[in-house]
């Protein structure tokens, strides 16, 4: 029998607020353990949660980025369970009345066609403390770090609309782009600000029934997500084919062995309305203010880039996928650089250079004005591409203007025909065999001679002129 996978995702996103969700402690989970704590997030007797307006705004922006309807009223519940990472005995979460419902995202399916994936709802919740298990001598000890307790999260629950690992991976990529765009989170699976759990069930192809699902956790990259889902589909298919029933449970992805293994049944406690955190009532005016803060989102920006700057679809998508890059691109183009040149140089030179230096676009000291200055010299034939690459790496190391670097290093391109003719003469004289090869029809000898001439100029010759002069002199 042919089976079809039904996949839904539960995605936790850590919001990049300055403070925690219910107190004024800094939202910096990575600090020295238990540094960012207070009577509220340690939940000492007499503490009262103080809901952060910034958390609500960042959460709402994320909801808008996912095309959700923000609910007029939402409320916090106590998700009751007893575990050392949650010493107040309940987690504040929105179980009954989530912040937003009914969103969607467009992904590109395996066939290249767009597909809509529904978002069931988005709710806010606080993160719990982090447990660190160690041994002191031979005694195992568990330490609790409260820096993460109360860190603001949103949980995004998709509809079970995905059918393949590819679609799930795509959904996470698009969701990440959207949420990064509105600035609510860095959405990094590697550093844990984006955590994805997948619910997977199978059914005979062509049927519409929802069968028992299995939850898979512990994937810390998009690739692992795809691998884990693929493995789980395979495992469940084998089970069904051998007549074993699928039981509801949770499995952990093991990235080393590339398998999922069943984990101990997780206790799921009740959710009761919290009597102390006030209900959230969203006014039209507030919602309008939030909506007006939405930037131009990537899909629309890509369309504009294609139309306004004549970029191909792929180029337009690439230049709009990250907000910082898209703004960088527009700043460069705004300084008169040809959009195609800008795209090419950003994609093939600037971004790899950033990756090499582990920098983000925003962190880079090579601001758009200096990068545009470099490309402008290239476009005016003042330097050649080879020199431009060298100058780009100098830009990362100094604060100097590209023109100053060019002057100092003498990289300015030689476009003076008489000077170039002199160089070419010398090259022809020194490479008689290549010249005769060329005359005997070995066309690649021309490339060799151009290379020799470039080298003789210290890499500064205008390669186009060299080629013209060589061709003329060889009488081709």
């Amino acid at each position, binding site marked *: 029998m042919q089976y079809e996978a039904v996949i839904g995702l539960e995605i936790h996103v850590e919001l990049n607020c300055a403070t925690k969700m219910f107190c004024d402690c800094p939202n910096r989970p990575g600090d020295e353990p238990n540094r960012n704590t207070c009577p509220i997030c340690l*939940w000492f*007797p*007499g503490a*009262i*949660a103080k809901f952060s307006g910034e958390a609500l705004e960042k959460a709402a922006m994320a909801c808008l980025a996912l095309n959700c309807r923000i609910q007029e009223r939402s409320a916090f519940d106590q998700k009751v369970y*007893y575990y050392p990472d949650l010493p*107040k005995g309940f987690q504040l979460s929105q179980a009954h009345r989530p912040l937003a419902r009914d969103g969607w995202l467009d992904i590109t399916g395996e066939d290249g066609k767009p597909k809509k994936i529904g978002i069931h709802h988005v709710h806010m919740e606080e993160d719990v403390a982090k447990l660190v298990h160690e041994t002191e001598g031979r005694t195992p000890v568990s330490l609790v770090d409260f820096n993460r307790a109360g860190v603001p999260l949103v949980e995004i629950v998709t509809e079970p609309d995905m059918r393949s690992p590819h679609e799930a991976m795509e959904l996470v990529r698009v969701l990440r782009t959207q949420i990064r765009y509105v600035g609510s989170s860095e959405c990094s699976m590697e550093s844990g600000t984006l955590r994805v759990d997948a619910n997977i069930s199978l059914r005979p192809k062509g049927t519409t029934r929802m069968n028992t699902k299995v939850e898979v956790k512990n994937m810390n990259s998009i690739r692992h997500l795809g691998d884990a889902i693929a493995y789980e589909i395979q495992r469940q298919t084998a089970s069904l084919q051998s007549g074993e029933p699928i039981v509801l449970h949770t499995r952990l992805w093991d990235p080393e062995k590339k398998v999922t293994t069943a984990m101990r049944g997780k206790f799921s*406690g009740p959710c009761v309305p919290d*009597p*102390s955190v006030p209900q959230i009532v969203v006014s039209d005016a507030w919602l309008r203010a939030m909506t007006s803060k939405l930037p131009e989102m990537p899909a629309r920006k890509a369309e504009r880039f294609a139309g306004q700057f004549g970029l191909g679809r792929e180029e337009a998508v690439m230049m709009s996928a990250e907000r910082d890059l898209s703004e960088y691109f527009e700043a460069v183009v705004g300084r008169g650089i040809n959009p195609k040149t800008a795209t090419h140089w950003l994609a093939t030179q600037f971004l790899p250079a950033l990756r090499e230096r582990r920098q983000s676009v925003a962190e880079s000291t090579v601001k758009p004005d200096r990068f545009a200055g470099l490309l402008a010299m290239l476009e005016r034939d003042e330097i050649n591409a080879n020199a431009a690459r060298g100058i780009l790496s100098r830009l990362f190391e100094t604060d100097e203007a590209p023109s100053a670097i060019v002057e100092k290093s003498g990289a300015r391109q030689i476009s003076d025909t008489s000077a170039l003719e002199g160089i070419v003469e010398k090259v022809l004289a020194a490479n008689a065999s290549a010249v005769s090869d060329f005359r005997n029809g070995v066309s690649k000898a021309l490339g060799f001679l151009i290379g020799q001439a470039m080298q003789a100029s210290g890499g500064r010759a205008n390669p186009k002129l060299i080629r013209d002069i060589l061709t003329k002199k060889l009488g081709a």
Partner: protein
Amino acid sequence: MPTHIFSYREPSPSRPGTDGALSGMKVALQPNMSVRGWPAEAGSKALERYVALEDATVVERLKHAGAVLVGNTRMSELGFGLAGDTTSRALSEGHADCALVTDTLGEARVAAATAGLWGFKPTYGIVSRFGLIGLVPSMESYSVIAANAGVIAPVMQVIAGRDERDFSMPDLAIPEFRLDGNGGDAIRHVAVLKESLALLSPEDGKAFLPALSRLEKAGFSLREESMAEFDLFRTVHQVVGAVEASSSAGKYDGVRYGHRAASAKNWNEMYLKSRAESFGLTVKAYLFQGAYFQFENYDAFEDACRIRARLVKAMENLLARVDAVAFPTQRKGHPADKAETVSRIYEAFLLTLAANVTGLPALQIPGVAGDGAFDPGLQLVGKRLSDARLLSAGARLHR
């Protein structure tokens, strides 16, 4: 240093300036109200050796107004009921001019009634709960007991009002607590609920009658009203209260403060043993009831929440027809100080807990009911935010 009345006695109460609104007034607190540096054990082993880290908002305001905080009286475990509570004695024996009492079921009003004192529970949400180590957040309120209304009003004036540290406080216009409120909005029409009188023994009923004639003599117009749902107040309080208590007390794990079991195999057993050894039988039973509704019968809890909304509405409707409702405060056969099971506690507070379920202000007035042998007290429950008018009405009755 503890005494039979105080679990903590401030050895050198501050000598305040003379300019504060409460300058020199001696105020007794309960050990679940945070005073920086004072033990705050809330009558429970679960908070053994816990010392408050900062002042509750109410405490900060009392200090600022020049009140002298004399110490913590003894209280029932986590403020549930009045068993072992010594607050009214602290007043009767002259240790303090007034006392703050956590009123969850009616503790302040009943404690006052048993001692012939005034007891006032304000409208829910006008006094900050920041720093109050509570049990049932949606029902409990700081309340004031004193020998006369003239002490309660200025204390309320000081402690009521917005607090940015308590986000659960609605944005309300707080009434000004004056006792000369005889204007157009003064309380005139008072209802007596048939269903509440039906809960009285003939003896209690007789003892309550003088309060009604006193009201009429003082110019209040009385009428009998009916509220068919009245008996649901208790059920709703018990279900919602137990669930909230179960959540609130979930944090007492004996790890960072409080009693911790001597040995355990693992953390789970440590929790279980510490909690088993910490809580008294009454609180344990109440927490079990709450856990039952949380884990096993959530539907019943949801029903209770819905019924609570209906009861709030019913009281609102009733208070649209009259200015206040009169109840006895206590019944003779149901002494609160001896009630040590959950059901006995609920029996003892049957006539006061409606104000906690609805969040309405309620005032216990001494000396107007009673047959010489037993004073059931007179309790007036008023509209939301009619706090000052209730106090004025009480004062009028004693004029």
